[in-house]
């Protein structure tokens, strides 16, 4: 096979980032999707029959469901999907060299202050990772406590009963078109199990794993937090992900059992050709506590609404989200809280920033079922517009079937004011520095919840973005 075809197989269609590779041909399915492709994926993964059946059923659902007509503009997606490779053997086979990574990308990493080892992973260079030692000792600690932190494939292989009991129970294939698609072709992602009563101080970080296996286009993550357990899972990074795939559709399912506390943090910065359509949902049982901390940057269109289904009495769900829409980008994000049981409480805090021709939409649902007595929910969404051309919308859906419920909703839109800019400039900051400081202040209530290194990266990223915001 000539080398340029190999490169196409990796999705690096137009040499956009100039990566070249000398690796041997890797397995990939042909572009587009049908039952044969799904069979091939399942066979490659050596899956049990039931999983293949699930995949095929999901494919039928996917094919039957129409494209969503709400949210962002998906009119070009059909075409994108027809030339998408739905599965290619992941990256241990595709050695890129750090020397091949373009200078401007290296500089971005440099300016973001990302440790070199991590930069290599972000650039898709499958290198040995400095923190492998750290990971190793953490892994021993986790294993001694009975914690499972595996790839989703290993989860299925090594823990078939636990896997089958929960897989697809939080987000069934029929939930929406893209959940169905993911259920048909999923590949990559994490499988996490925390035994009852186990408290983990150190967050479980996905990047410990993804150096061995690239974050998939159709990642699937299943997390089960046992009764009374406590843990924090972190995925992603504020540095740009130079994936050349133009479509990412993940499914994240979390079961938070009685009295457990679980936080899922994700910050992602996709390249701006990307459709990012993700379904993430947690089932929160009695007295349990779930927090989504969700940061969305980059991409062409992101549609993502982390959800908490508050199933048991006194369950609490919290969604904190930051969205940043730069030129030509649309962030359609928000959250959903579904109150099913009495005395459940929830809060959504959403902050969006639109710059240039960027557009951010808050889309949220608060539903309280009859019988969820004394449920309380509060939604706060704030939008900040940087330029005259920036746009924001708010779509709050509130459905209350319970008289004793208390629901609050507050939305604000602010513009970076001339008076604010002048005030900061009169203290010596140039316009970009002033703008960055205002934006950082705006997202501070959420940024302070981030692990320190992520908050620092996010701040630096905003500075870089604001440099281009002033004429």
């Amino acid at each position, binding site marked *: 096979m000539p080398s340029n075809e190999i490169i196409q197989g990796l999705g690096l269609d137009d040499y956009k980032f100039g990566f070249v590779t000398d690796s041997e041909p890797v397995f990939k399915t042909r572009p587009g999707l049908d039952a044969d492709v799904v069979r091939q994926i399942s066979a490659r993964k050596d899956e049990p029959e039931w999983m293949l059946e699930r995949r095929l059923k999901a494919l039928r659902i996917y094919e039957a469901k129409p494209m969503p007509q709400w949210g962002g503009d998906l009119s070009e997606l059909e075409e994108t999907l027809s030339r998408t490779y739905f599965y290619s053997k992941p990256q241990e086979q595709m050695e890129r060299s750090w020397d091949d990574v373009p200078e401007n990308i290296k500089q971005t990493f440099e300016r973001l202050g990302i440790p070199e080892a991590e930069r290599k992973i972000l650039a898709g260079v499958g290198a040995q990772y400095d923190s492998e030692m750290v990971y190793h000792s953490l892994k021993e600690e986790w294993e001694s406590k009975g914690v499972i932190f595996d790839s989703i494939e290993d989860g299925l292989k090594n823990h078939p009963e636990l896997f089958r009991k929960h897989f697809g129970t939080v987000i069934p294939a029929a939930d929406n078109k893209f959940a169905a698609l993911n259920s048909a072709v999923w590949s990559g992602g994490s499988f996490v199990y925390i035994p009852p009563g186990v408290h983990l101080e150190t967050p479980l970080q996905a990047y410990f794993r993804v150096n061995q296996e690239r974050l998939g286009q159709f990642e699937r993550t299943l997390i089960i937090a046992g009764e009374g357990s406590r843990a924090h899972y972190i995925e992603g990074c504020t540095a740009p992900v130079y994936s050349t795939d133009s479509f990412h559709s993940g499914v994240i399912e979390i079961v938070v059992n009685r009295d457990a506390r679980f936080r899922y943090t994700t910050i992602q910065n996709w390249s701006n050709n990307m459709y990012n359509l993700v379904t993430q949902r947690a089932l929160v049982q009695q007295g349990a506590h779930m927090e989504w901390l969700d940061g969305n940057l980059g991409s062409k269109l992101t549609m993502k609404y982390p959800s908490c289904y508050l199933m048991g009495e006194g369950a609490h769900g919290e969604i904190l989200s930051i969205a940043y829409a730069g030129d030509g980008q649309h962030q359609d994000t928000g959250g959903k809280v579904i109150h099913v049981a009495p005395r459940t409480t929830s809060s959504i805090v959403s902050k969006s920033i639109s710059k240039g021709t960027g557009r951010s939409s808050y889309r949220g649902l608060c539903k309280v079922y009859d019988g969820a007595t004394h449920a309380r929910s509060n939604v706060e969404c704030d939008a900040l517009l940087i330029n005259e051309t920036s746009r924001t919308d708010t779509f709050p859906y509130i459905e209350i079937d319970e008289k004793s419920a208390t629901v609050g909703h507050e939305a604000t839109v602010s513009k970076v004011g001339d008076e604010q800019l002048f005030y900061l400039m009169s203290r010596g900051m*140039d316009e970009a520095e002033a703008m960055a400081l205002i934006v950082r202040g705006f997202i501070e209530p959420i940024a302070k919840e981030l692990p320190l290194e992520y908050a620092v990266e996010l701040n630096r990223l905003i500075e870089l973005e604001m440099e281009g915001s002033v004429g």
Partner: protein
Amino acid sequence: MDDSPILAVTGLEAGVADGDLEILKGVDLAIRPGEIHAIMGPNGSGKSTLAKVIAGHPEYEATGGGVAFGGEDLLEMEPDERAQAGVFMAFQYPVEIPGVSIANFLRTALQSRLEDGEELDLFDFQELLMERMELLDMDLAFAQRPVNDGFSGGEKKRNEILQMAVLKPALAVMDETDSGLDIDALQVVARGVNALREENPEMSVLLITHYQRVLSHIVPDTVHVVVDGRIVESGGPEVALELEAQGYEEYRKAHAA
């Protein structure tokens, strides 16, 4: 000592940037290092416009005359360049910056004064901030609050003085800093300015005010009375006292066009 003015305003004419209305109609003013000049005048006389034109407020535009600062053409400079050159304006209405602590704000302001690639040392900054707050007799917890967000009028003005103390300007323009302050807050502001002057006798002050009372706390070398966009009288502190006794009406009559 060099006796050339740090600020030289000559024949300055100015108005609102996208309006026809002329507010300043030829103002001349020279402030030498270490001098305190007070500008007094009735509402709408143009005294705040003068402060804003000096600081570079984008809504105001000089249409004639000039402003030199340390020999440089101030009107050619951006607001941040003016600040870095040593001009500081204490705002009449300080602006809220939610989510940004005063400490972080000041650190960014100091960082912006460094060369590219130079990093402000965090410990040096902490030390400076603590020392400045002690000088002004301020509670350290104040610096952790978000800039002007939910502040009382007095707190906002204290914040302006703290910024002035940290940024150590050559010229402090105080735009009606005393307005709306009770006597305790006024004294805090005055003590701050006086402490900074004691520390750096070269610091010049342009004090814009409506009332005489601040001038018994911050004693000016020269008092100018502005009516209808022009300085109509200049003199020592006694001018302010006369003004207090007579009101602005006399001046208005005398200078009615």
